[in-house]
């Protein structure tokens, strides 16, 4: 039983990190209809930028996190303006766009390796004593990770439901052409989508580095597939679906390690994903994807 509780604790921590990243990934897809594989490399880059600020410059880790997240958001907007939009204006196919984001992913990830090398790094932080909640035991950073994730999810919820920007984003994701006709400046909405998504990627990357303890230049890409799995499980383009998918994947991967070898936890996650997609090809919550498919 205690093992089960411990696994649940780890699962919640992972779910929090997956949720931050998955919501960022899915928001950007729903607003811009580009499946951005470079998302993983942006997570990595943010983790290393925070390392540079924290270890080399000597800044506090939380300040480093904020700066790295903001930098990731700005980089994402630059990628959108400089590369993605020109290709989209040319009418590059969906598949072509995926290939381009893969190429960007390779470039950023290996630029990180070329700069910082392939070794494992860690942040300059005090470990602190573990915090016990009932029979669950968390490290300081795990609790902060959960906290940031919960606050982040609430903020996204309020943004989408309460603000003009959020409504415009939802409208753009439902029907880009109609939104444009209605006077929504879609190019600004796209920038906002990329910025938000980049920021969430950056936060997830740094927090991943913190909770893992040590990380290398493959950190983002090694989690990207799990994040895509969480996203698709929930139904791609669905912010709440991504949160749900993240919780499912986070918990299931940990629970499964109680039953079979921990090496299989990813296998279990992906088998669940494939099974869900085969039964319900649009994910648990279908919406954007199904609508677009019908309109096409």
């Amino acid at each position, binding site marked *: 039983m205690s093992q089960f509780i411990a696994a649940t604790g780890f699962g919640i921590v992972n779910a929090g990190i997956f949720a931050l990243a998955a919501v960022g990934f899915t928001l950007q897809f729903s607003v811009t209809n580009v499946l951005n594989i470079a998302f993983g490399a942006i997570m990595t880059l943010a983790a290393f930028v925070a390392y540079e600020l924290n270890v080399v410059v000597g800044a506090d880790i939380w300040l480093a996190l904020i700066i790295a997240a903001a930098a990731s958001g700005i980089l994402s907007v630059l990628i959108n303006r400089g590369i993605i939009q020109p290709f989209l204006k040319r009418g590059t196919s969906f598949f*072509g766009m995926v290939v381009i984001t893969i190429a*960007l992913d*390779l470039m950023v990830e290996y630029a990180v390796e070329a700069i910082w090398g392939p070794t494992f790094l860690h942040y300059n932080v005090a470990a602190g004593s573990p915090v016990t909640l009932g029979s669950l035991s968390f490290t300081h950073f795990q609790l902060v990770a959960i906290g940031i994730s919960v606050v982040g999810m609430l903020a996204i919820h309020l943004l989408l439901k309460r603000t003009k920007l959020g409504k415009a984003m939802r409208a753009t994701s439902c029907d880009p052409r109609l939104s444009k006709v209605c006077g929504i400046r879609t190019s600004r909405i796209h920038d906002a989508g990329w910025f938000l998504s980049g920021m969430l990627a950056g936060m997830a990357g740094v927090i991943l580095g913190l909770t893992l303890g040590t990380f290398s230049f493959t950190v983002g890409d090694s989690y990207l597939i799990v994040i895509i799995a969480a996203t698709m499980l929930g139904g791609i383009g669905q912010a709440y679906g991504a949160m749900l998918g993240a919780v499912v994947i986070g918990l299931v991967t940990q629970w499964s390690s109680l039953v079979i070898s921990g090496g299989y936890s*990813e296998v279990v996650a992906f*088998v669940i994903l*494939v099974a869900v997609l085969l039964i319900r090809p649009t994910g648990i919550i279908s919406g954007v994807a199904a609508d677009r*498919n019908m309109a096409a």
Partner: protein
Amino acid sequence: MSNSDIYLLTTLLVYTGVAMIASWGLNLQIGETNVLNFGFILFEAVGAYVTAILTLGPDTGNGGVQQYVFGAVLPFPVPWLVAMVVGAALGLVMGLLTVRRLRGDYEAVVMLVMAVVAYYAVSADTSLLNGSEGLSLIPAPFTGAVGGGPNTSMTYRWVYVAVVALVCVLAFIVVNRVTSAPLGRALRAVRDNDAVAMSLGKDATRLRILVQMVGGALGALAGAMLVQWVGAWAPGSWTYPETFTLFAAIIVGGTANIAGVGLGAVIVPGIILEGVIFLPTFGPSYLTPALQWILIGVLIVGFMWFRPQGIIPERRRRFPALAVPGTAGESNAVQLVDLEPRRS
């Protein structure tokens, strides 16, 4: 040429030939039929593993240093042929799993996920294919006939290059026949617009599964040829980004053009990835591979922007003038409407 030059050159040639066959297989899928197989590397992996266990013998051999299922010793070229059959069977499974697709991105992601699942499963289970350590000591073929192996005889290395070249020629003939025949036309119709293809009686589902199987057999053959040259195979040899080097080869060379894709395989996996063995080393050991991957990324984006059709674009298929039998020239009399009943 010194022996070390021959050593490097033959390695370069074998890798290029292997990549060429795999690229042709992948091009049948993404280039001709728009089957977005982001998990293509799985075919190579399966071909390599099948060949390994069909040449290594029982896993009690070599002092029992590694564990795997079903060891056997089959003569060349039986392991390669079995690898192709297993590759085609895997293509059938992948095809059937993605048949119920709604959108191309789901198809692509399901295939990518399958490659990743296989990677984790093979890594985690040491009794299946020796886990993340991978298999080693895989014997080279026809060493007896040549009188030496890849590490002892330069002649052997040239013989292996010749075998790879011969297989490339055969693969070229296969791919060329498929794409030049009415079958290729039907594949390209599915690529351009599958709803239209179906409205004309072309079974898009069957055709997609077909290219999964043919491409799968070619991918597995590439893996089979590679593993008996290298002598070792581990999950690290077939991580999912490896598929993207083949994508790069196709984009740079020319999508849906066999000669173009072949050229792309020479340029990207050949010259860019393997050609560096001829360069003097510089910087730390990780720097060169990192720069290679950055270069591949730059090439993909650059070609997509400046020359999306690739170096050798898809060929426009023209048909020779034909006289109508029994007349001097062409006719415009044609029976347009078929009022006869048909069996179906």
